[in-house]
């Protein structure tokens, strides 16, 4: 892998009060990659995502984006640098219209300048959002809401897009569509780090993967090498 990674976590530990949610985690994401972060519930995947976004701050270690330390920055500064998260549970603004949700995604000054182009790109990716642009976001179906959440995150034209459990609660067909869109977003130049519970699914789409267990990385490597079920099963079930 050539050069410096786009995102690098170096021995990051995160505590909630006395509870150590993430222990000594190091990982890197290189430009253009799709990397997945796999683990059972409570393994600390979402915590890692939140730490990258500055929603929680690590007690130890550093997070480096484009060669710059970001672990002490505010979320708004990190978003301005070009990192965007599609949070677990979508968290769309349900009483705002679809259009307003997308506009909220283009809040940072950098994004506001190019919001027309980005809007076009998002509508191109998910035409249904254009059709529903005047509708309240809360009236969308689950899959459409997830598309909106992804579209909203794209509006800031991120260099790195973080996806947290985007397939949760969605039907296989919708999930399939979403993953197609993810590939397209990636092929258009956005680097992606995704968190999934659906192991087989995420190994399929990503080039590399890290497996978290109880807050620690227990396994990592190229996704195609990790398809050996037994190893992952043991990471999950421990028996």
């Amino acid at each position, binding site marked *: 892998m050539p050069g410096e990674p786009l995102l690098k976590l170096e021995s990051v530990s995160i505590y909630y009060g006395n509870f150590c949610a993430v222990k000594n985690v190091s990982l890197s994401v290189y430009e253009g990659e799709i990397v997945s972060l796999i683990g059972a519930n409570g393994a600390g995947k979402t915590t890692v995502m939140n730490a990258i*976004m500055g*929603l929680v701050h690590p007690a130890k270690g550093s997070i480096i984006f484009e060669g710059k330390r970001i672990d002490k920055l*505010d*979320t*708004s500064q990190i*978003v*301005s640098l070009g990192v*965007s*998260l599609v*949070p677990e549970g979508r*968290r*769309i*603004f*349900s*009483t*705002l219209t679809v259009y*307003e949700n997308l*506009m*909220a*995604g283009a*809040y*940072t000054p950098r*994004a*506001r300048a190019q919001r027309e182009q980005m809007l076009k790109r998002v509508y191109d990716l998910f035409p249904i959002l254009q059709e529903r642009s005047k509708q309240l976001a809360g009236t969308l179906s689950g899959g459409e809401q997830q598309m909106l959440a992804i579209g*909203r*995150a794209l509006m*800031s034209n991120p260099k790195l897009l973080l996806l947290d459990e985007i397939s949760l609660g969605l039907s296989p067909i919708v999930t399939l569509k979403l993953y197609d869109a993810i590939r397209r977003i990636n092929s258009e130049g956005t680097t992606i780090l995704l968190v999934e519970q659906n192991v087989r699914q995420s190994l399929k789409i990503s080039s590399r993967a890290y497996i978290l267990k109880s807050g620690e990385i227990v396994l990592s490597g190229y996704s195609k090498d990790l398809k050996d079920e037994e190893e992952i099963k043991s990471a999950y079930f421990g028996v």
Partner: protein
Amino acid sequence: MNLFSPIITGIFLGGLYAVIGLGLSLVFGVMKLVNLAHGAFVVFGSYLGLALLIAFGLDPILALILIVPTAFILGYCIQKFLVNRAYQLGTEPALLITYGISIILANLYQQIFSPYFKSLVTDYSVKGLSIGPYSVPLIYVLDFIVCFIAMLLLHWLLNKTYIGLSIRCAVQDPVAAKLMGISIEHVYALTLGISLSFASLAGVFLGLTFPFNPVSSFTYLFIAFGVVVIGGLGSMTGTFIGGIVLGLSQTLAAYFLGIGLQTFVGFIVIFIMLAIRPQGIFGVKE
């Protein structure tokens, strides 16, 4: 019996009450914080208007060009440097700090302007307007017009600007709003700034309508609170109707029970509303 006069003044007065409630409702809707200094903020407008009137002979309505921005900056700073810090510690410290601010302001008013009643007297503030056989003070009509202007303005601000968008996002989901790059602390500061601007607007018109003194800070806090409790915190239509209900209950109580019990009835209405439906008539249960 002639109910025309109490009803029409009640409605006009209610419009002004609604403006007093707007800012409180906004702050509660955004931060889930009951701003106990809201009444003091209202009176801030009245006193600043008075100061400008005395010092430069500036017409209070014209002076709004100066008063509203000053109020905005004051609100922004109070939130940024005081309330935000307390807010991080929990809702009770934030509530108590607004209490502290109200004490400070009320006492400052007293030091600067004396504890006695003052009013903003202009030639139009004492004029009457005839509607058929009845006469209504012109200023009451102005109050009612201001109510509509204020509501339209706030509506525009919330729905058509990026500031409004960021506020609405922060209300719905502070975490998601952060992920959009919105700084929640900035939004909160803007919110208090806007709230104080509307409070000072109400204050100027209240000062034109009624005499005021430092203790009015608390009276207007109760009125503001009554308006939003009746109408439902965070609902603009509710705030308007809450204002009218409170205005009417006061003028009608004065008509039937006498001036002495006019505020009593208003307060009892608020208290009962609090007990049976704290989210207000139009509020949504959380």
